[in-house]
C-alpha cells in the first residue's frame, strides 16, 4: 500500500478526536437488533408501528404517490424555499385556513428537511438576526436533539421547569416561576402538543396563563410542532396552543414535521414559519432565510413535499388522511389504557394514571435507570434510560408482556 506520508496533520488531528458517542436514541435500536429474545420489544425510537408491530405506510400516501406517478413530473430544482404549494398548505394546516396571519401575508413559510432541518434553520436565523440574548430556554426535559441543534447554531441553552417527576405530570407552578424570571427578549421553546419525551401537555387554561406570562416577559416563542394530529387525533385541537398564541399577539416562529403524522419519516418533510409584523417584513425575512439555506443544501427534496401537498390539497385524500391520523392516535390511546389495565391485573399498587393522562407517542413511565436496566436485561424491553417508552412500539400482542415486565421491576 502507498506510503501514506501526506497530510499527517489530518490523521494526527483526527487521531486526537475520540469516537463520537452513539446517539442515545438510535443506539437503543442497535442494541435491540442484536438481541435474540423472541419476546423483545423496541420501545426506543419514535416511529409509529401498527398493531402487528410493522411500519405503517398510510393509504393516503400510497394513493398520493400513484397520483404523482401519473403526472410524470420533471425533476427540476425546487426554489430555495421549497415547493410553494407545500409551504402554503403547511402553514394553513398549522394556523387554520382562515387565520388572519395568512390573509395578510405576514408569515413566511419555507419547506425544510423535516423537523430537524426546520429547527436548525430557525436556530441559525435567530443566531444571525435576533438582537436579544443568545439564550434559548428549553423545557426540562426536552427532545435530546434540541440542545445540540441550538448549540451548533451558536445559541446558548437554558431550561425552565416542566416535568414533575413526583406526579409524572406538568410542573405548572415551577414552569411559571421559571418563565417569570427569563430575561426579556430571550427565546423560549414550547412543544405545541405531545411533548417529547414526557407526553405531558399543558391544559388549555394553563396555556393561556403561559401565553400571558410570556407576553409580559416579552419573549420570542419558538413552537416545535412535530405531532399535529398525532396527539389527540384531531389536527385543530393539537394546533390550539399555536393558534392561541398567535391570536394573543405573539409573532411566533414555528417548526413543523410531517414525519409522524403522515408517516413520511425518510422523505424529510417539514416547514419553518416566521410570523412577522407585516408582509413587508416577511419578504425581508424570506430573503435572509434563503441566504441561510442555500449554503446548507441549496434547495429541499421534492418527493415528500409533493406527497404531502397532494394529500393536503385533494379533498378525498385529505379526508382519508384525517381518518388515518385519527386511527394512529386512537391505537396509541388504546394501548395506554390497556397497559394500565394490564398493570392493575398484574397487581401493581402504583398509580399509573399518568400513562393515560400523557399524550402522543411517548410515555414517561417514571421508571428509574436501574429499573430500566432490569427491564432491558431481564425482559428484552428496550427503551431510553430516562424511562421513556414509545407507545407506538406497544401492540395488543405484547402489551400484556410489557405490563408484566414493568410490574416485575417496580413491585
Amino acid at each position, binding site marked *: 500500500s502507498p506510503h501514506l506520508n501526506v*497530510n499527517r496533520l489530518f490523521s494526527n488531528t483526527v487521531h486526537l478526536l475520540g469516537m463520537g458517542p452513539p446517539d442515545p436514541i438510535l443506539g437503543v435500536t442497535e442494541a435491540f437488533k442484536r438481541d435474540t429474545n423472541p419476546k423483545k420489544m423496541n420501545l426506543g425510537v419514535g416511529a409509529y408501528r401498527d398493531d402487528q408491530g410493522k411500519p405503517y405506510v398510510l393509504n393516503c400516501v400510497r394513493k398520493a404517490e400513484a397520483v404523482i406517478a401519473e403526472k410524470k413530473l420533471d425533476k427540476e430544482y425546487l426554489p430555495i424555499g421549497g415547493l410553494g404549494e407545500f409551504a402554503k398548505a403547511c402553514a394553513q394546516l398549522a394556523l387554520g385556513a382562515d387565520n388572519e396571519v395568512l390573509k395578510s401575508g405576514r408569515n413566511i413559510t419555507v419547506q425544510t428537511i423535516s423537523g430537524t*432541518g426546520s429547527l436548525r434553520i430557525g436556530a441559525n436565523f435567530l443566531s444571525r438576526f435576533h438582537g436579544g440574548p443568545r439564550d434559548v430556554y428549553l423545557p426540562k426535559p426536552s427532545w435530546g436533539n434540541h440542545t445540540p441543534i441550538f448549540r451548533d447554531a451558536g445559541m446558548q441553552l437554558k431550561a425552565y421547569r416542566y416535568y414533575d417527576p413526583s406526579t409524572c405530570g406538568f410542573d405548572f407552578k415551577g414552569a411559571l416561576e421559571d418563565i417569570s424570571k427569563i430575561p426579556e427578549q430571550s427565546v423560549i421553546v414550547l412543544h405545541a402538543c405531545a411533548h417529547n419525551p414526557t407526553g405531558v401537555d399543558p391544559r388549555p387554561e394553563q396555556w393561556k396563563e403561559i401565553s400571558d406570562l410570556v407576553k409580559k416577559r416579552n419573549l420570542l416563542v419558538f413552537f416545535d410542532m412535530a405531532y399535529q394530529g398525532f396527539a389527540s387525533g384531531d389536527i385543530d385541537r393539537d394546533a390550539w396552543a399555536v393558534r392561541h398564541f398567535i391570536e394573543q399577539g405573539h409573532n411566533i416562529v414555528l417548526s413543523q414535521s410531517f414525519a409522524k403524522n403522515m408517516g413520511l419519516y425518510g422523505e424529510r418533510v417539514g416547514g419553518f414559519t416566521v410570523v412577522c409584523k407585516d408582509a413587508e417584513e416577511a419578504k425581508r425575512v424570506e430573503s435572509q432565510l434563503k441566504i441561510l439555506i442555500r449554503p446548507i443544501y441549496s434547495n429541499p427534496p421534492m418527493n415528500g413535499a409533493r406527497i404531502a401537498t397532494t394529500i393536503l390539497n385533494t379533498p378525498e385524500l385529505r379526508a382519508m388522511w384525517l381518518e388515518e391520523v385519527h386511527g394512529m392516535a386512537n391505537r396509541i390511546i388504546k394501548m395506554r389504557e390497556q397497559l394500565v389495565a394490564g398493570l392493575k391485573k398484574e397487581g401493581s399498587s402504583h398509580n399509573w394514571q399518568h400513562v393515560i393522562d400523557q399524550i402522543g407517542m411517548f410515555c414517561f413511565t417514571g421508571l428509574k435507570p436501574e429499573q430500566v436496566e432490569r427491564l432491558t436485561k431481564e425482559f428484552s424491553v428496550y427503551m431510553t434510560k430516562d424511562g421513556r417508552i414509545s407507545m407506538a412500539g406497544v401492540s395488543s400482542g405484547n402489551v400484556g408482556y410489557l405490563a408484566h415486565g414493568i410490574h416485575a421491576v417496580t413491585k
Partner: protein
Amino acid sequence: LALAMSIFSEVPQAPPVAVFKLTADFREDSHPQKVNLGVGAYRTDDSQPWVLPVVKKVERLIVEDSSLNHEYLPILGLPEFRSAASKVALGEDSAAIKDNRVGGVQALGGTGALRIGAEFLRRWYNGVNNTATPVYVSAPTWENHNAVFADAGFKDIRPYHYWDAAKRGLDLSGFLDDLEKAPEHSIFVLHACAHNPTGTDPSQDEWKKIAEIMKRRNLFVFFDSAYQGFASGSLEKDAWAIRFFVSEGFELLVAQSFSKNFGLYNERVGNLTVVARDNENLTRILSQMEKIVRTTWSNPPSQGARIVGKTLNCPELFAEWKDNVKTMADRVLLMRDQLKAKLQALGTPGTWDHITQQIGMFSFTGLNPKQVEFMIKEKHVYLMASGRINMCGLTTKNIDYVAQSIHEAVTKVQ
C-alpha cells in the same frame, strides 16, 4: 394586537441569488425567441428537462416494491447508495476501498456534501475548531462555495489563480504559485472535472504538478465532483484526477453530486466520500460526521438515494445509466462544435477555440458585463454576468439565433 416593536424590524433585505433571479427574469420575458443559458440543468434538443429513462424504470420498480416503506434512513444514509457512490468516484478496483479506508456520508446534493465536509474540517482539521485555517477556492468558482465554507465557520477564504481571461484558459503558473505560497495545511477546493463556471480543467500533466506541490506542502484536498460522466461521457475519464490523488496517498474528501449525471436535481442526492489513512481513522471520522448530520438534517431523504443505489448496484441498470449519461454529454459536445463553427462562419472577432476546448455544462464565453447586458436586454438571451453560458440551453433550433446574438454583442458593444 401584535407586540409593539418587532424584533425583526432590522432584518435587511438580502439580494436574490443571481442564478435564480436570472431564471425568474427569463420566465417573465415574453419575447418569442428568448433563450435561457443560465442555471445549470440539462435540457433536450427541445429545450425540455429530461428525466433519464433509467430513472423512470427504477422509479417504477420502487413503486411496485410493496416491501419498501418510508422509514428513517440511518444518519449517514442508505448503505448501498453510499458504498456504490464512493465506488463510482474511486473506481471498481480502488485499493483504498479494498483497504477499507473509504466511507461515504449521504448528503443533500453536492451542496450538502460540501457543507458536511466543511463543518467537519472546521471542527477537526488542523487543530480543534481552527476557524483560521485558510480555505482556497478557484477564481472564479461556483458562487456558493464561499458561503458554504464561511457559514461552516471558516474566517479566511481566499481565491487561487485559475482562469486566465487574456488567454481564455488555465492560469497554471498562477495556480502553482498560489500552492507554493499558501500556508501549510490550507484547504484547497478542487473541481474534479468540468470546472464551474469556466469549463476549463487542468490536463493530466498539470494535475500531476498540482498534486506534487500539495503533497510537499501538506495542503488539504477537497474535491467537488458534480459532473462525473457528464463532462467527457466517460465516468473513468472524469474521475481521473480524484483517482490520481488517491493513488498518490492523499487523505481527502470528495463532495459528489448526482443532480446532473442522474438528472435527479430536486431529489437532492449527494455523497461525501471520505478517503482516510486507515479504517480506524475512518471509523472515528464517520462517527463525528454523524454528529454533524444529526443537528443539520438528522438523516437524509430516501427517494433519490434509492434510485441511484439501485441503479449503480445492478449491472444492467448501471450500463443503461452510463448510456443515458453519454447521451447528455454527447449533445453538449455537439452544441459546442456547432456554436464554434457558427461563430467562425459569421466571422465573429476573436478566437472561439475555447468553446470546444472547455468541457462540461458550462462555457466561459469571454463576453464582458456590457456585452452580457446587451445579450439579455436586446437579444433576450439570458446568461450570467460572468459571461458563463449553460451549453445545455443551446439547441439545434436556437443555436443560430444565439450565435448571431453573440456576434452582435461582440461587434456592437465594447
